């Protein structure tokens, strides 16, 4: 019996290692392809195509990106501004909402919860919302159009409410009230301190949304100076005339034989680099927060 058990255990171990290694490779190789292409000479790409290992090493892709760094830097600026403001403001408003909805002595909490939840069940659709934003709120070409729509989601408010419920004991709030602390003070001094893992998770969701957003720019921004980073990259990838345009703005002629293919890939690396760099640190909090949320349902 134990021998058979041993054999099965070994079999499973083998299977587990094989599958996880293969899946990990599948998750990793696409990034290596981009990295490799960004380090390859453009003629080599045009002649022989993309490879996993650069056929002819060259940094010209990056050189082109940083010859005219204005656009990338500006796009970085826009994305950093929207990410920081959106995450901070969104966190403040959603933790408050979550706290209020988690308070058992708040009489209408179920009604208000449903008011928020209902928006996930039914909506007017993209078009009426778009027309409201552009025609009635006049937010075209405003950074507000990039920040406001992502501030709150019903999912994150409910997640926050559950976090607070599990992290802050009811009796603590009760006793603080008896000691004369106001509702906002309880929120600021007790609830926020105790629900840090939840706040980190919700904050990460928010930051990730803002950092990766391209849709906002594509809907509301006409002025290229206000493009978000991802949308800037999107344009670089999708416009064949990118290099020509970039030269035109500066009055310098760049000729036709510039490393467009490797420039595209170098741009992708420049855009993703910081995320990949931060990823190992961020990922741990994310997993931790999600785990708490999942266990609590």
């Amino acid at each position, binding site marked *: 019996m134990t021998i058979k*058990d041993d054999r099965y*255990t070994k079999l*499973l*171990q083998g299977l587990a290692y094989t*599958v*996880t*290694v293969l*899946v990990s490779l*599948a*998750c*990793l190789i696409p*990034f290596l*392809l*981009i990295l490799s292409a960004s380090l390859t000479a453009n003629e080599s790409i045009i002649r022989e195509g*993309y490879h*996993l290992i650069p056929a002819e090493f060259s940094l010209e892709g990056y050189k082109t990106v940083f010859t005219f760094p204005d656009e990338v830097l500006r796009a970085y600026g826009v994305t950093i501004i929207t990410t920081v403001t959106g995450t901070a403001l969104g966190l403040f408003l*959603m933790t408050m*909402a979550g706290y*209020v909805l988690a308070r058992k002595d708040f*009489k*209408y909490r179920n009604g*208000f919860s*449903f008011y928020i939840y209902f928006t*996930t*069940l*039914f*909506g*007017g*659709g*993209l*078009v*009426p*919302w778009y*027309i*409201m934003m552009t025609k009635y709120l006049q937010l075209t070409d405003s950074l507000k159009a990039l920040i406001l729509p992502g501030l*709150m989601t*019903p999912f994150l408010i409910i997640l926050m409410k559950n976090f607070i419920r599990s992290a802050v004991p009811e009796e603590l709030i009760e006793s603080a009230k008896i000691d004369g602390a106001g*509702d*906002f003070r309880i*929120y600021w001094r007790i609830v926020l301190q105790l629900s840090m893992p939840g706040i980190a998770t919700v904050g990460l969701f928010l930051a*990730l949304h803002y950092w*990766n957003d*391209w849709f906002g720019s594509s*809907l509301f921004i006409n002025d290229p100076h206000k493009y978000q980073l*991802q949308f800037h990259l*999107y344009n670089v*990838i999708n416009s064949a005339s990118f290099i020509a345009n970039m030269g035109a703005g500066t009055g310098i002629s760049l000729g036709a034989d510039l490393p467009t293919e490797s420039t*595209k890939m170098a741009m*992708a690396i420049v*855009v*993703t680099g910081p*995320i990949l760099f931060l*990823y*190992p640190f961020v*990922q741990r909090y*994310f*997993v931790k927060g*999600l*785990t708490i949320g999942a*266990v609590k349902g």
Partner: protein
Amino acid sequence: MHELVRNRVLFLMLLPALLFFLINSYFPMVGVYYAFTQFDFNYGLFDAPFVGLQNFEFLWKSGTLVRLTLNTIGYNLAFIVLGNVIAIACAILLSELRSKWFKKLTQSIMFLPYFVSFVILSVIVYNVFNYDSGFFNTLLAQFGAGPVDVYSKPVVWIFLIILFYLWKNLGYSMVIYLAAITGISEEYYEAAKIDGAHIFQRIWYITVPMLKSTFVVLLLFSLGSIMKGQFDLFYQLIGNNGLLYNTTDILDTYVFRSLKVTFDIGMATAAGLYQSLFGFVLIMTVNYIIRKINDDYALF
């Protein structure tokens, strides 16, 4: 009113959220009126000429509505079924790994695609599949085969879209299932071991059934949004490549294109309203049925 005065601070703290959803979600609901008009940017909301159900009629008669609905639901079903099955399998295998650092490392790698933007995904697809220099065609050439123009083969994209969906979301669902597996008491396994159950039996009779409730919760959550497409995924992979619309157009991409490319506002609103209503009816029905079967799992 008494409550409003007594808990005024709490009300004030909730107010921003209430206003946000009022403006962002409830106001646009009024705008569904556009679906019944011949929209013109020069008119105000209620000045546009009323055309009744003409927009819906056109969507229906041209077959657009049926095709979009089938595509949207079909893809979502594939995402839900494959996504969960593969995530469960990977989570179980990962949880069995003996080496702790290896477990952490592979989990981090599998979670990585979730963090990059869909634009990066489009760069990857471009890198691999573009006709002139894509990695795929380079590989084919090395094996002596001629290049393939993937961008003109609609059927291939069904699989590619599903593949890249799985690629991007596997790590996320896996984390949730891993958390559930970690939560299973060690005692069950010990007892089963003593009773002579080998590892595959322990997995099949303990781990898999214990994941049921997590699975059902995730399943119901995704069934509720089965009419909502993964807009980012489809738009970044397909873009405005008309050759592929038949197999890859979903409601969300159609609405977006009608709004930004063809400027067919009335039609776009009609399609959006249809999507919302259909989704609403679906989720109500699903929830009603679940209530009958097992109240604990009901969404609301």
